[in-house]
């Protein structure tokens, strides 16, 4: 699962040409094959084939969904915007998340970054997946799932591009507590 979580984390980074390339795309489609999500795969292929500049389309969508956009950013990818606070950054849940990392013996490499960004949380799940299933379960239950379900529904509701709908469903699939 480590590789899965790291792949999911990667898929939520800003899509740059260095990594959002044919190799990545091919692995994504293969993963959908393994899961037998053929409709999603077909939609992604169709949209990519019809795009004038597919990378830019995904970049615009990422910016609109997660950074700044008209009418407003759809879903800032930070737990504290959605959960246990007043909608601003670095709320209580962000501090709790940072504390959890620390208790497990980890810290952010860029210590001033916000700890509750979805990319960090998925990367941390990758770390826990190695040898701390209890920690992973607790992290999912107390810190990840409470906000991700809100975040996911906002993205699914407002995403224009199928890529992020697929990624949301993949993250949901691999982080659901029940098997």
């Amino acid at each position: 699962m480590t590789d899965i979580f790291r792949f999911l984390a990667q898929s939520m980074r800003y899509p740059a040409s260095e990594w959002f390339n044919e190799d990545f795309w091919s692995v994504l489609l293969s993963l959908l094959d393994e899961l037998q999500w053929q409709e999603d795969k077909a939609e992604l292929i169709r949209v990519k084939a019809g795009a004038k500049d597919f990378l830019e389309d995904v970049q615009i969508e990422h910016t609109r969904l997660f950074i700044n956009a008209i009418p407003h950013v759809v879903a800032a990818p930070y737990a504290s915007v959605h959960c246990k606070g007043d909608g601003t950054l670095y709320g209580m849940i962000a501090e709790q998340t940072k504390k959890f990392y620390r208790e497990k013996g980890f810290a952010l490499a860029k210590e001033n970054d916000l700890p509750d960004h979805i990319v960090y949380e998925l990367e941390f799940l990758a770390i826990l997946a190695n040898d701390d299933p209890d920690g992973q379960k607790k992290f999912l239950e107390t810190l990840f799932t409470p906000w991700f379900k809100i975040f996911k529904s906002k993205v699914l509701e407002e995403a224009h591009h199928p890529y992020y709908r697929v990624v949301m469903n993949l993250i949901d699939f691999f982080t659901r507590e029940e098997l």
Partner: protein
Amino acid sequence: MSFKVTRRKFLQTASIAAATLPLAKVVSAETGFVRDPFTPPGSLEGTQTVTGGVCEMCFWRCQLVGKVRDKKLVKLEGNPKSIDNGKSICARGNAGIKLLYDPDRLKFPLKNVGERGKPVWKQISWQEALDECGSKLKAVQDKYGSQGIAMFPHGASAKYPMDFFEKVVGTHNVSEASFFQCRGIRDMAYMATFGLAPDENVDMANAKAIFLIGCHFGENVHVSHVKKYLKGLENGAKLIVVDPRYSASAAKSDIWVKIKPATDTAFLLAVMNYLVQKDKYDKKFVEAHCVGFEEFKKGISHASLDWAAKICDVPAKQIQEVAEVLAASAPNVSVHPGRHVSWYGTDFQRIRAHACLTALLGAIGVKGGFVKGKGVKVKGITWPTVAEGGEEHNLRLMADKYHYAPPGTPTELIRDACITGKPYPIKGCVVWGQNPMQTIPNQQKMVDALKQMDFIMCVDVMPTDITMYADILLPEACYLERYDFIKTGTQWNFTDKQQQYIAPRMPLVDAMFERKDEIWITNEIAKRMGYGDKIPVNSLEEKINKELAGVNLSIEQLKKEDGIHIQDGKDPYGVPEDFEVQLYNEDLADKGYPAVPTYIAVEEAPKGFTRLVYGRSPVHTFNRTQNNVWLHNAMPVNPLWLNDEIAMKMGLKDGDEIELVNSEGVKSSSKTVIKVTPGIRKDTVYMAHGYGSKNPLLTVGFHAGADDQQLITKLAIDPETGCNGMRNNFVKIVKDGKSLDIPA
């Protein structure tokens, strides 16, 4: 979507899947985590006090400390060492945290791949953003000359880039809202009278009378200034407030002059004429320091109490009463110079009257009077002047008008040139920390000026209305995240022990995301425009250190001194022998302007309309704070003050939701509510400025309240300064889609 494979099944075959899918090959080698041995709880739970903060929720710049817990700023407080604001900060200062952590803030460089005004944003790298800014601005410069670039700067961070564009690139077309839509008129009118800009230097704490014309302390909260004001009241100063509205200051006044808007100059002339006619002015001061008294006396001799009473719609006896209180309190009188004074397009004359009245009362250099504190001078480090071309393309000189304009170029000359292409085209625009959509009247004119540009770049902390027109939008570190401005001054009460302070802004936390400061951004653009060899400093830290070295200090030393250096000060009282007051200003006469303060009538409201005036909310700094969650909750909309008798005639009640339409047919694009009150004249409505953003990127501030600036479409230009007057606009109330006449 169909979930044909369960998670359990997938995981059971995970090894097969992992072998099949080269997942690891397509992810970054690095993760965002490092090993960090766990430290037992307790040692990291404490809150650290970080000193060196200087607020910029408004421009008063109170000194702060930050309470920081595990790299997170959790609280802001006044720096206990401060001799200026002390431990106190205002509601806005407290709410700075919510600016810092506002999820709507700009985080990364953005490129507009849509239209100006209807942007579609795409995150881009700094490299790409700076390359585009540098190359596009250079292209404009090459094709149209340096004068083809206009700049609209505001705030401490805009000074360095402004100097770059003026001194190095060589454009005169820089227009600061703080001058041309705010205090520039005041500064220039006092310059033409006292030879110096007044700031807000009145010694209210030690005054026997405080005279406010349109100032509304309590709504306009600058901490040390309000401390002076309240100390004065506590000491028994008489408070005279001239205002069409029962403002927070009027509520504390001994005399409230419920004046008709736009007639203040007539009121001041009558007060001065009364003092002169009754020999109640300070003859000794006038003889020693004033020039042109006889011409002045003659020039205001028509201003009888009855003349002014009729114009101002106040009793003659009240004008007399004001004059008598001022005379009885002289010379210990604070005649406040005002701050935002760009009201009617005749404001230079009114502010000249403030200064002349101050002189007649001898209220200069004495306790309670006009007194400039003697703070430390810290020499700034900035760009060298290397641009060639001199004044050749200076629009103001080419027009041969606005001879008393503040520094920069009057906004309307720039906008007119943009729109007409005459006398030359302006095709590049740099907006830095200013929101011209909500600071400059006539929004459509601004849009027209912007739309014809070849290139527009904006630098800001928030996605304000103007940023919707940017081609490239750059995210700036805010005042809590950067070194910057060095605040200097004295103890707030001039009769306390004389002290001076030096307080450079130092970051309380590191900048998040990819936000950068003004030195880095400007230097990178300069390099790309071919001016890399002119760069004076490489970082804000270096700049501040070099500036502090001039007063034998350093950042390191300031950190040891808890962010503020304090040293012995000098007695601010007294008047230099050569101090001169131009009651009659010959230079003004030579250029065709009234040489003695003169009342000039302005347009009256058309039938069915009423005059719209605006002001400050105590919890907002205009549009700069409209998206702040705490401040928004404290005052989410800006109610329209409407006289109770008028409201009754119109069938309106407190809390009714309304829109406004002005006499030129412009309708507000968002709603506000009515505040029914006897505390405003029947011929005036009032609202706080800085609400009703049209940028949906501001999740909180979008369409919250109504935007007064949208309704200010009639342009009035002050002839001496070229600054805008913004209270000559008239509105009707629209309720349930129906436009209602306002009875006279």
